[in-house]
């Protein structure tokens, strides 16, 4: 009975959403509907942004050069909202058995409610809400949260001075986790002391993760010259934002060689530095940590290479195996993409090297393909193999084999 009520509620919500929708959608459909564009306007293989899409985002969701003519949300005929979900067959198995729950079934994988647009001249906003889903019966559980809610004040003097305030995916991630074309996460972005390997066996108890969205303010700049920058003060990831709000700072600079904006044209190289403070998973004082990153996004014809190197250093207070010694790790990923007219193929290698006393090194290889079926619909096929060295029991490494064939749908 309860399940039936839930289904009816879902169907009702869906009907309401569809009833108020003004026109068919593509990509981040609220934007596509606004201009009559299709998804390829801003995405090389949605959700990954192309040069134009990246400029559009950085310009506060306004078409560069056309800011004065942008319609605000009050001028639009419908709500600037969109919905995204995935469904399909997922197989996720682990060795040794029982290390994690195993999945082999058709399932719906989360729902994102997205909103965005222009509030006024050079004032944009973006919202990503993940409704709570209890899960079960082929529906993957989802924790309810406001993943992003930010206001962008663009072109405060020129494109060289823009401010984003609220909760957002910060620019210290040169390759967006939220707009990645892979389901498998970037390991180095996810790496923290409370990741899926038990915190008891992880060498650092720093809960900070680069992958989380953060609350704060970010100043960015870009222009016609090849430089781009971002400077921010944030409260760290939601993992280390416990009872108070730390004030972490970061800076990122990037340079684009050749023609383009560095997403799908031109060769972009960048460097990032992040200084933060966090509690070691227990009440007490905050301790410092640092992340240094180098990245490159290289394009040649339909091929694209994403390269990320990150070195992390946590205060000795985080170190489980050698308390007092700084916990140092490094890692990164290299991903080769090939973007065709209606499809994208990708292969990525992730690695994280932990200190020898810890020895929970992670490697992951991911291959996959996305095929555009129709404007709001993408077929996604992916296989990923992940291995985590087990420092406590050498020879009994944790491995994961993930495979999925899903429809990725946005409306």
């Amino acid at each position, binding site marked *: 009975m309860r*399940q039936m009520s839930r*289904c009816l509620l*879902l*169907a009702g919500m*869906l*009907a309401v959403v*569809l009833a108020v*929708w*003004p*026109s*068919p*959608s593509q990509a981040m459909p609220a934007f596509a509907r606004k*201009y*009559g*564009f*299709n*998804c*390829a*306007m801003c995405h090389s293989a949605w959700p990954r942004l*192309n*040069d*134009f899409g990246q*400029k559009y985002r950085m*310009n506060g969701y306004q*078409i*560069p*050069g*056309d800011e004065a003519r942008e319609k605000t949300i009050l001028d639009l005929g419908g709500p600037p909202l969109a919905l995204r*979900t995935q*469904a399909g067959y997922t197989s996720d198995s682990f060795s040794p058995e029982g290390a994690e729950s195993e999945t082999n*079934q*058709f*399932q*719906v994988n989360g729902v994102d409610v997205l909103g965005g647009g222009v509030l006024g001249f050079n004032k944009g906003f973006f919202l990503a809400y993940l409704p709570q889903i209890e899960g079960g*019966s*082929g*529906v993957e559980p989802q924790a309810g949260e406001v993943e992003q809610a930010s206001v962008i004040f663009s072109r405060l003097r020129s*494109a060289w001075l823009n401010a984003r305030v609220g909760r957002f995916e910060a620019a210290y991630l040169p390759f967006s986790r939220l707009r990645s074309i892979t389901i498998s996460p970037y390991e180095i972005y996810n790496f923290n002391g409370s990741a899926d390997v038990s915190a008891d066996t992880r060498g650092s108890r720093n809960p900070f993760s680069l992958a989380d969205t953060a609350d704060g303010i970010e100043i960015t700049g870009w222009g*016609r010259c090849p430089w781009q920058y971002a400077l921010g003060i944030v409260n760290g990831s939601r993992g280390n934002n416990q009872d108070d709000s730390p004030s972490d700072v970061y800076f990122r600079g990037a340079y684009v060689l050749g*023609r*383009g*904006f560095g997403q*799908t*044209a*031109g060769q972009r190289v960048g460097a990032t530095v992040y200084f933060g403070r966090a509690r070691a998973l227990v009440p007490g004082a905050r301790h410092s940590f640092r992340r240094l990153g180098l990245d490159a996004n290289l*394009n040649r*014809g*339909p091929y694209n290479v994403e390269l990320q190197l990150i070195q992390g250093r946590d205060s000795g207070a985080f170190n489980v195996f050698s308390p007092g010694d700084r916990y140092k790790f490094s890692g990164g990923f290299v991903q080769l993409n090939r*973007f*065709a*007219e209606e499809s994208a193929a990708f292969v990525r290698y992730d690695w994280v090297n932990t200190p020898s006393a810890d020895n929970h090194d992670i490697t992951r290889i991911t291959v996959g393909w996305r095929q555009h079926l129709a404007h*709001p*619909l993408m077929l996604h096929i992916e296989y990923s193999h992940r291995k985590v060295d087990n420092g406590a029991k050498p020879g009994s490494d944790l491995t994961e084999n993930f495979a999925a064939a899903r*429809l990725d*749908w946005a*409306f």
Partner: protein
Amino acid sequence: MRMALVLFVAALVVSACVAFSIQVSKAQGQYANGLLPPVPVPADNPQTDCKIRLGAQLYFDKRLSSDGTISCASCHRPDKAWADTGPVSEGVAHQKGSRNSPSVINAAYIAPQFWDGRALHLEKQAVGPVQNPIEMDLTVAELEFRLNHIPGYVCQFQEVFGSRPTIELLAKAIASFERTVVTGDSPYDRYIQGDRSAMSKAAIRGMNLFSGKGHCNVCHSGPAFSDSRFHNLGVGYANGKFKDVGRFSVTKDPRDMGAFLTQRLRSVALTPPYLHDGSERTLEDVINLYNRGGIPNSNLDPAMAPLNLTEREKSDLVEFMNALTGPYPVVEPPPLPNPELTAQKLTEMMKECAK
């Protein structure tokens, strides 16, 4: 699990139905998504048959040039989709201008006229070339003298406007005639109205590229495929300066340096060469220019960026441009009043009067 599958498929079906019904309702409307609305006509210059006929005569009348060799139709040729065939056109005494002659087709649909937008509407545009020393090279006084000494025109102006000929009334008549030069019934229009066989698959792919990866739609928008604004593509930029400063010559605003009016695209396939200086011979060449992201300069339009189009995508875009070609009016030169009064005779008459 089964319930999840059912819910997801149901959502897909419902969304597809909604999308389809909206597309159908759009297509059944009078016009939508770029289809041509009625031609905008200014309140102070309503369309009348007599005025249009008078405008057609004036459009073809070479006596409106100093040596009697050039009319509007010389550079905006009805048999060449109302444009010219060379990069730039010849004016009086075989002088050459510096800009390509744009087609008159659908000029009524965008507000600013000329590549630099110096005329706000057709009535202002029509008097420009007449006075341009490179094009038709007549002073206002000489133009009005000539019109007022051609009895056939005097009668017609009296009938249409209730007044003797003036340059303002000449402009109104020509503008009225130009407002009849429209094209809209292209394969694209028929496709949007529901005829799914009207465009080839390549053209449909090109249409999606147009509002997608190519982001042509950012500027080439609206019923005539022009945003009536000015953009800098870097065309004509070399050695740190522009050969033609474009919109800057009108506004003196540095942000307008090298910017030119977005051109209309209907029947564009019939009007090579392209761009303000006629520097690109074919549509493929134009698309290659965009694919490179234009020509870098300090004022390049922010929307310009390399597109990474494949050869097939470029070809598809050209196919879509071809699908914007509709039938356009081909007007034969009408009989002109008092042909015995040549430009030379009228000049001599004016000199006599001056004595």
